[in-house]
């Protein structure tokens, strides 16, 4: 439909992207008793940590190999070994997710090889799994790192053989932009068909904001490590978003589990397709509460479509989220006046806007302003752009650090779509374009003389 246009600036101004290593760490945070470890200088971890804490308002377990100038030049194997040792002693996690950074990838370290010999040297770390995800900061963004970490976990933990299929067991690979509450909502729907879902990663267990009874130095919930190995025995893999295709393919390659990629779960039609698949898989009719939810969404669309019609939105997000949000708006009759994303991707090519610009929030500001947009949908950083051109901002994506409950918002499925529709529809209602009043010429005016006394 259209080609993503690469921005021509040498200087990114108000970046839209977060780094792949942060995305990788986030994926590892969806595994139970895990601790992500960034292989880079300690600043790589500190920045990612602060941003994750601000977004989720939770303590985030995240460590660093603390690379120095010297260890970068000589090789970081020793730092990795020390880091694993220290983490093992202090936190005793089940899984360490080792994400590389631009720093270590520039030197082109053989982390995989190093890791193998390190683990051989330490039989006492037998129960510990260390998964390495390549996440160089100079290639891609959060979405890419997230996908890379999920695929790395599958490659490391799922056996390379066909396994006996476990009836009614399915794999769910959530998209990087799905909130903990989104993940929970989709899992609930899958399970309402009597299916059991292995969700990887499962942020709804770890970053859903609960108060544990004791101090936990690792993640406090998420996919159990041994359940990841069980994924090879599922009937099917349901992957959400084009960026999860690679992980789904890896799983099929290793264990023959077929897969289906859903490009989005926002919108009636989109979620219908997902539910249809669940009906087919389970051989069961849709449960009553789900039917009711669908009906409520249909009603909301009927009530709400007036307010989307004729409006124009500017959206900036990672490719798969951009696709999901813009398609939904398009379906509600809202025009997409500007679309900005982080990189080229098959998903970006399906966005109902021409052109889709690979760029930053400065590009968003320029395009939204020239495209006469009524609303900006982007992460919290876009507040600057929205202020500058005087349009409301609806915060979605990562990071959202200036709102409570960023992790608790649901925008997928029938119920989530309805909530999204209400949120955005209400902004449009608040910001209606009103007619300038017209003063009638030569209007009759009351005067003392015109008053007939009784």
């Amino acid at each position, binding site marked *: 439909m259209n080609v993503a246009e690469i921005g021509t*600036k*040498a*200087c*990114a*101004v*108000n*970046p839209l*992207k*977060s*780094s792949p*290593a*942060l995305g990788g760490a986030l994926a590892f945070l969806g595994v139970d008793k895990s601790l992500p*470890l960034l292989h*880079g*200088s*300690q*600043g*790589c*971890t*500190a*920045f*990612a940590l*602060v*941003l994750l*804490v601000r977004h989720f*308002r939770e*303590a985030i377990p995240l*460590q*660093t*190999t*603390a*690379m*120095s*100038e010297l260890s*970068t*030049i000589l090789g970081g194997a020793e*730092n*990795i070994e*020390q*880091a*694993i*040792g*220290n*983490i093992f002693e*202090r936190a005793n996690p089940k899984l360490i997710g080792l994400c590389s*950074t*631009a*720093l270590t990838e*520039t*030197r082109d370290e053989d982390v995989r090889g190093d890791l193998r010999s390190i683990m051989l040297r330490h039989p006492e770390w037998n129960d510990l799994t260390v998964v390495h995800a390549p996440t160089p*900061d*100079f*290639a891609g963004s959060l979405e890419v790192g997230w996908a890379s970490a999920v695929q790395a976990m599958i490659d490391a933990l799922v056996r390379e053989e066909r396994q006996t299929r476990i009836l009614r067991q399915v794999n769910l690979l959530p998209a990087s932009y799905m909130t903990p509450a989104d993940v929970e909502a989709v899992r609930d729907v899958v399970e309402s068909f009597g299916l059991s879902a292995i969700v990887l990663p499962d942020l709804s267990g770890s970053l859903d904001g609960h*108060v*544990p009874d004791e*101090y936990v*130095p690792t993640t406090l919930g998420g996919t159990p490590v041994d359940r990841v190995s069980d994924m090879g025995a599922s009937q099917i893999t349901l992957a959400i978003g084009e960026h999860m295709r690679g992980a789904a393919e890896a799983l099929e390659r290793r264990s023959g589990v077929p897969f289906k990629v859903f490009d989005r779960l926002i919108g009636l039609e989109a979620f219908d397709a997902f539910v249809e698949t669940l009906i087919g898989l389970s051989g069961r009719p849709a449960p009553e509460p789900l039917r009711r939810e669908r009906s409520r969404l249909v009603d909301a669309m009927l009530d709400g479509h007036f307010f989307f019609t004729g409006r124009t939105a500017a959206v900036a997000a990672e490719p798969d989220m951009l696709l999901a949000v813009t398609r939904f708006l398009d379906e509600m009759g809202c025009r997409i006046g500007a679309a900005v994303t982080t990189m080229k991707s098959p998903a970006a090519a399906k966005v109902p806007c021409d052109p889709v610009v690979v760029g930053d929030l400065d590009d968003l500001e320029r395009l939204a302003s020239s495209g006469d947009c009524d609303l900006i949908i982007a992460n919290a*950083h876009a507040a*600057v752009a929205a202020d500058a051109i005087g349009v409301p901002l609806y915060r979605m994506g990562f990071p959202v*650090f200036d709102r409570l409950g960023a992790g608790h918002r649901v925008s997928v499925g029938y119920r989530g779509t309805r909530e999204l529709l209400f949120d955005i529809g209400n902004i449009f209602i608040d910001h209606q374009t009103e007619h300038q009043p017209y003063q009638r010429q030569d209007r009759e005016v009351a005067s003392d003389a015109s008053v007939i006394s009784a």
Partner: protein
Amino acid sequence: MLKQRVAEAFNEPGCATNRGKSDQDRKRGCSSAALTPGAAAGGCAFDGAKVALQPITDAAHLVHGPIACEGNSWDSRHSATSGPQIYRTGFTTDMSELDVIHGGEKRLYTAIREIADRYRPAAIFVYVTCVPALIGDDVETVCTAATERFGLPVIPVDAPGFVGSKNLGNKLAGQVLLDRVVGTREPEKTTPYDINIIGEYNVAGDMWQILPLLDRLGIRVLASISGDARYHEIACAHRARANMVVCSQAMVSFARAMEDRYAIPYFEGSFYGISDMSAALREIARLLVDQGAPADLLTRTETLIAAEERAAWRQISVYRERLQGKRVLLYTGGVKSWSVVSALQEIGMTVIGTSVRKSTDDDKVRIKGLMGEDAALFGQIPAKDLYRMLAGDEADILMSGGRTQFVALKTKTPWLDINQERHHAYAGYEGMVSLVRQIDATIHHPVWRQVRAPAPWDKPGAGQ
């Protein structure tokens, strides 16, 4: 060259900690011990350099590196401005794989040109991060060429993350200002009352609670380094009569170098706490009078201090009874924790422990003097131990930075942010009153009763 600068940064005769070290330890530097793989916390040198320079509000700050360095960190610092906004804009070369292979110099040059053409900032600071340092981008030469070509100062800040800690980055940033900015311009006028304030970053508008007091005394801040600063002011800073260093460890080298080069005397002080605030004003006045300012400044200062202290204590007295005996755990990277300790004690609170991570030996002696010989002085408290202390009800409030916020909250302990990310200004007399008000509101917040109450199913006799 960078190695040499790093070594110099550590060889600081003005630093009390350093004076106490052996030659060998001094060479090793002051922050190398903190960098343990798998057990490290805190920012890198780039972070520290950015913290120190970004508050220069009319300059553009361009980060030369891949997306992680600026993409993950911009828009997160609360250094306030009274005017220009350009310093807030996140500029980065967002280096791609191709830049790593072919070198990033060309992209950097073009990026500088784009900023110069479009925004015309007072200056452009270019931060070198790990990757361009590793592949050997000649940022120095690019900046020199850009300065000539575009007719504005383009200043390389060579503090890549992997050379060390945030603190080291602060120091390297100070050296950049000394070597390339201070003394490059002349002020229109000078007065006998000109001072520089060094190491105050105007977090949450802290400085704005100090400046009105200085104005009333007729003391002019020639340059603030660097809260709410303008580039030109820092370029003229060498004409001040006295320097005050606020965040001592990181910037004391800067002040000492200015003493060496320009014969400007300095002192280290703090704006936190009532007695410290007064001491700072007294010292500023004394130094200025020593340098030739009219002696009546001293009496005027005393009059102001007396009035301000009286007013502050009057406002604080309302809370004295409510906070009497409440136990505070003070956990901050802050340098002068004793100044806060004494302030809290002055209002009747009990400080059960404080961190001395960045304190000098002198500071530790002062804290012991205040809290007694068995005072609990902490270095780094592991999160696990902190959780145990708070869960065990050892403190009524934790005052710390964002890093330990959720440890406190998960134990349902009142928590108050006193670090860089905070939104309240705590400096000066007014700041101390607002700190006390905030402590009171936090400790006596209605939420604690409800969140600590057992769930219905956990009540005795429930569910039977």
